[in-house]
């Protein structure tokens, strides 16, 4: 039985710990603290927690004002609102002056399921990556999420961190150390490389396992930091395995896959395939059903690897 844990829950707990360690940390939410789990911080440090109501634009500019006054600010809401709803506020108030605001979007991707397309954030990584000063991270599991939150708090500058609603499989060993901007080698392999983040890392590992039965040796890289990318690891994978498949819970455009492709096309062109949501909006359904419908399963990754190897 694969162990699972919630990235947003560990986010809330880590924030509460950080609050005790650093009196400079301030947390904002937009009437979703019971969902984003910033409530753990709010309960312990009510004087440093500001619920801005259902007003995300206001929240992001308030975050900028606090950060400009020396605070380390975490601002949370659902991923779809954290980026799309207040993009101009992120752009002008936060990104351009490179202020110390950590935007943490929970309920990322399509695994918020039944809520439907309005709540599915399939463009958030593209939007966040388009902001020049932002660092963008999609943790694969709760172990990583806790470390990512701590690293973000320790570095001055804007971050976007995308978390999930459902519990996700724990994919890292207990001694795993997240390093900003570095990929993690999850599995060695020589025939192709799967580069994934978020909950697609678990699917990638499953796909690699199945391919192994057919004697196809797959390298699996977990790529939590979408920006800046670990270009060296990507180029090494292209060089040593000759084919790359990316997997992400996001639109094909502007996410992990297209960013990896930018590196590959410049440094070491090899056949690539992108497992991602195609140019469409999504529907209500159970997370597993949606992942299947959007082509984001281990089977989809497996098929992409077989296909990309044929093109080598």
């Amino acid at each position: 039985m694969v162990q699972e844990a919630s990235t947003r829950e560990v986010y809330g707990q880590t924030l509460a710990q950080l609050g005790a360690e650093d009196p400079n940390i301030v947390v904002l939410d937009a009437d979703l603290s019971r969902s984003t789990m910033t409530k753990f911080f709010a309960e312990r440090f009510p004087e440093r927690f500001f619920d801005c109501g259902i007003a995300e634009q206001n929240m992001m500019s308030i975050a900028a004002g606090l950060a400009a006054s020396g605070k380390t600010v975490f601002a949370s809401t659902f991923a779809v609102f954290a980026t799309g709803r207040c993009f101009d506020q992120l752009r002008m108030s936060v990104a351009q002056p490179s202020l110390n605001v950590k935007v943490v979007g929970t309920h990322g991707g399509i695994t918020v399921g039944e809520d439907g397309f309005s709540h599915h954030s399939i463009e958030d990584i593209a939007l966040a990556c388009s902001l020049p000063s932002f660092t963008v991270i999609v943790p694969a599991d709760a172990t990583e999420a806790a470390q990512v939150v701590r690293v973000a708090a320790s570095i001055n500058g804007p971050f976007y961190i995308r978390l999930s609603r459902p519990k996700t499989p724990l994919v890292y060993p207990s001694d795993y150390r997240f390093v900003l901007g570095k990929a993690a080698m999850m599995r060695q392999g020589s025939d192709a490389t799967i580069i994934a983040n978020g909950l697609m890392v678990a699917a990638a590992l499953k796909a690699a396992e199945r391919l192994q039965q057919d004697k196809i040796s797959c390298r699996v890289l977990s790529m939590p930091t979408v920006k800046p990318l670990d270009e060296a690891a990507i180029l090494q994978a292209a060089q040593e395995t000759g084919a790359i498949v990316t997997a992400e819970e996001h639109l094909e455009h502007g996410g992990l896959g297209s960013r990896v492709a930018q590196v590959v096309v410049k440094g070491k062109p090899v056949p690539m395939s992108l497992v991602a949501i195609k140019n469409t909006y999504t529907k209500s359904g159970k997370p597993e059903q949606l992942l299947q419908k959007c082509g984001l399963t281990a089977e989809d990754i497996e098929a992409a690897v077989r296909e990309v190897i044929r093109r080598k």
Partner: protein
Amino acid sequence: MSLSGNEKVSLAQKDISASASISDAEALNSKALRRRELSMDELVQMARRLRRYVVTMIAQAGSGHPGGSLSAADIVTALYFKELRYEPTNPQWPERDRFILSKGHAAPILYAALAESGYFPVAELSTLRQLGSCLQGHTDRTLTPGVEMSSGSLGQGLSFAIGTALAGRLDKRSYRVYALLGDGECDEGQVWEAAMAAAHFKLDNLLAIVDHNGLQLDGTNRQIMNLEPLADKWRSFGWHVVEINGHDFPAILGAFWEAKKIKGQPTAVIALTIKGKGVSFMENNLEFHGRAPNPEELAKAMKELG
């Protein structure tokens, strides 16, 4: 002399007439007038000087927004030469009062006040909007000493000011936060999100000044998007409201003084102003919302502001 010390910028500068130059001598003279000790008459003179800088720098740049800078000139003068606590040699002084220019297109009046206050040389004003200048078309907090917020996209400044005021309260600092908004800017929904939040957070260290000149780019407020009853709107959001003539120094300073006595709620100063104030042919003239004066117009404006 009208050239900055920045060679790259100087090279890019256009030839400008003598009447268009910003005089260092004039600036030096004015340094003798120490802020806070200015009489009402001297404040009037200072505002006129800042207006001269505004029309001159916009004419030199060849683009910009004179109307909204001129309508706010007296408010900004009252702030920088009587009201605000700040230290030009230490722009990051933690106890400084914060002035947040939310209507970023009025950057020239802020630049004029900052230069005259000693944040940077007055000669720098000649570089407005040029490649390499620290004086961007709209404010940029990363480039200009004394500028608190990067602005230009309207509606965000009051929210930013709330963050600044909350930080002041958390850190038990005594500074006050002054946000200057345009009236047309109040079309933006975020202004009202912020209005609700500032009252909710009981930010009595925050003051919003609405430069109510009645005009926006496409026409009058009434024609484009009626704001009235503007004062009642702010009141109903939980603000203490003071309505004043925004060109009357005793009234402006009186409003600032009154705001300091109000506890438990923020204060909104609705300042009735005239767009383009001080230059007859720019007053209430939509055309000068966003157009630079040509050399003849500049000469005429400088004569009027002389």
